């Protein structure tokens, strides 16, 4: 399972971002930082009428917005589209996403295209204020002018919603936006994507999207102490709201190595027979990609397959063995936790060994990345909360076991699964992981459409 989402990347970055700002303060000194930070206001415009935008451009913008997952952060679950207000809680306070509907007073209705482009490029609002890097302009800076134009056209033709920005709740001195300039100085590398002429056009298209608008690294790349993605560990796995965003480079722990075709169908359909179903924050990403042009999804798959690299002969062999075992259904049962084994046999096997292919039959657990991963959190999350149905759509359902299994029972099950199917060293401290997961996780597993009259501070996202 891949896990990723840009909103969550913001949460993940919380402490690091703040650290970065403090560092910038120290580096430059307050006065210098202020000089560095100043940006002019870009003149307000009269909101353009929706009809002034070319329909083709709007359509292109819609597809790009799906790839960029814009609605995910800028829409509170169940509330008005793109009206912002989604809270991103941090230990230092809360940042709220902004209203990007064309409402002239509370949205971006008075933003010119230049103002929009500047925000994407360098994280500056129309009035010259610096935007918190919860908005991933460290990636969006790579987006071409042409694509920014399409995105702008798309957003400016949305339904305007009057929804004033919610006040961020940040402690002094972090409520001073000028400090963000320091963070940018260190970590924002402005500029458009530069193609690699040694690679195919498709690869380049994929790289452009992945590094830019799709901002995959925001979740899948670990961050340094100052909250920036570690260039040296690109796609080596990240941490998102108590989910692990899996490594999607050579360190990938999927039992069967990924290739471009598998990535394509996974990203497009949300599942793949050899890899299972996208869950957690990644569920939203694949849902959006299902409405993006297949050529773009294929390009992303081609590029990511290259990032994942050609598997070593050893890894390839292991993958083939895992597949063969999954197909034959027979596997030698190694010595394993007896309690866990009986729980598995009674509660899990009827679906996971039912012979029905995914996404509806439950993946053969010998193919599960969650079990093969060094980090047991994702498995704990799934066992606790299951997989809930999408409103009115064909989608996998798995009952959650939070109410019927104790932490000890789940830990026993997880340990059994790791030994039985993981072919890996045992996990440590699984019971603690389960305890933590039970405390924090349930809400993020919601994949169903949200309550309609959701309270304004709902932290869940809209789906579908």
């Amino acid at each position, binding site marked *: 399972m891949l896990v990723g989402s840009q909103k969550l990347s913001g949460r993940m970055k919380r402490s690091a971002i703040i650290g970065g700002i403090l560092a910038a303060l120290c580096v430059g000194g307050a006065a210098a930082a202020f000089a560095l930070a100043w940006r002019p206001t870009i003149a307000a415009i009269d909101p353009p009428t929706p009809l002034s935008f070319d329909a083709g451009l709007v359509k292109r913008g819609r597809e790009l917005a799906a790839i960029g997952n814009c609605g995910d952060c800028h829409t509170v679950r169940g509330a008005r589209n793109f009206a912002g207000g989604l809270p991103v809680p941090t230990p230092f306070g809360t940042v709220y996403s902004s209203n990007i509907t064309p409402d002239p007073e509370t949205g971006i209705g008075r933003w010119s295209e230049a103002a929009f482009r500047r925000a994407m490029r360098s994280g500056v609002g129309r009035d010259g204020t610096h935007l918190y890097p919860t908005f991933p302009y460290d990636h969006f800076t790579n987006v071409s002018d042409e694509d920014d134009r399409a995105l702008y056209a798309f957003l400016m033709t949305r339904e305007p919603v009057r929804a004033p920005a919610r006040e961020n709740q940040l402690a002094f001195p972090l409520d001073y936006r000028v400090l963000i300039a320091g963070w940018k100085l260190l970590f924002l590398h402005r500029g458009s994507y530069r193609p690699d002429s040694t690679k195919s056009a498709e690869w380049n298209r994929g790289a452009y999207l992945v590094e830019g608008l799709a901002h995959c690294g925001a979740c899948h790349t670990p961050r340094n102490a100052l909250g920036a993605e570690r260039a040296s560990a690109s796609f080596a796995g990240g941490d998102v709201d108590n989910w692990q965003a899996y490594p999607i480079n050579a360190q990938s722990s999927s039992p069967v190595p990924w290739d471009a075709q598998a990535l394509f169908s996974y990203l497009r359909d949300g599942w793949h027979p050899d890899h299972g179903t996208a869950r957690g924050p990644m569920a939203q990403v694949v849902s959006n990609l299902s409405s993006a042009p297949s050529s773009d999804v294929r390009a992303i798959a081609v590029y990511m397959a290259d990032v994942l690299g050609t598997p070593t002969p050893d890894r390839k062999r292991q993958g083939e063995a895992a597949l063969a075992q999954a197909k034959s259904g027979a596997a030698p049962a190694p010595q394993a936790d007896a309690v866990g084994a*009986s*729980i598995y*046999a*009674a*509660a899990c096997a009827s*679906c996971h060994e039912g012979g029905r292919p995914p996404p509806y039959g439950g993946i053969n657990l010998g193919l599960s990345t969650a079990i093969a991963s060094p980090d047991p959190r994702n498995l704990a999350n799934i066992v606790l909360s*299951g997989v*809930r*149905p999408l409103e009115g759509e064909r989608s996998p*359902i*798995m*009952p959650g076991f*939070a*109410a*019927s*299994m104790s932490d000890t*029972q789940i830990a026993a099950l997880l340990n059994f699964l790791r030994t039985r199917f993981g072919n890996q060293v045992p996990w440590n401290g699984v019971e603690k992981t389960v305890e933590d997961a039970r405390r924090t996780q349930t809400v993020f597993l919601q994949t*169903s459409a949200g*309550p*309609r*009259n*959701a309270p304004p501070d709902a932290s869940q996202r809209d789906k579908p």
Partner: protein
Amino acid sequence: MMTLMINGLTHQLDADPDTPLLYVLRNDLKLNAAKFGCGLGQCGSCTVIVDGKAVLSCVTPLLLLEGKQVTTLEGLGTISEPAPIQRAFMEEQAAQCGYCIAGMMMRAQALLQKNSKPTDEEIRTELEQNLCRCGTHMRILRAVRRAARLMDTAELSPGNQGSVP
């Protein structure tokens, strides 16, 4: 032999530990309320309460239940002395075929035990796991709201709670 606590009584059961609770309730204990709907944890008609939480008895093997308290609809009240949730469903006439209703009531009961004044959204979100095919949803929602009020009143008069033992 398994020992289970069901509706406040201890039962010795001649059943394999991998048997889903539902079959034991229906066949060994002859309790009708929990229903077989899908056997897959997709529809909620088998919902019972285990240690205060709504649990799908069709995917809950006995071996998970050692030392836990199981409550079924029969454990809440009877025709002559209905629990608040049962009174509420009768008063709202919240059933058509009624096959899903026992499961609905148990999930609602579990919700009301931990949240005595749920919002309409909280009720809907909680009941989302349970399917009804007759389209009795509007009445079910009304019945749960009524049950909340009845339980509130019942709390004032002790000994009339009808909640889990």
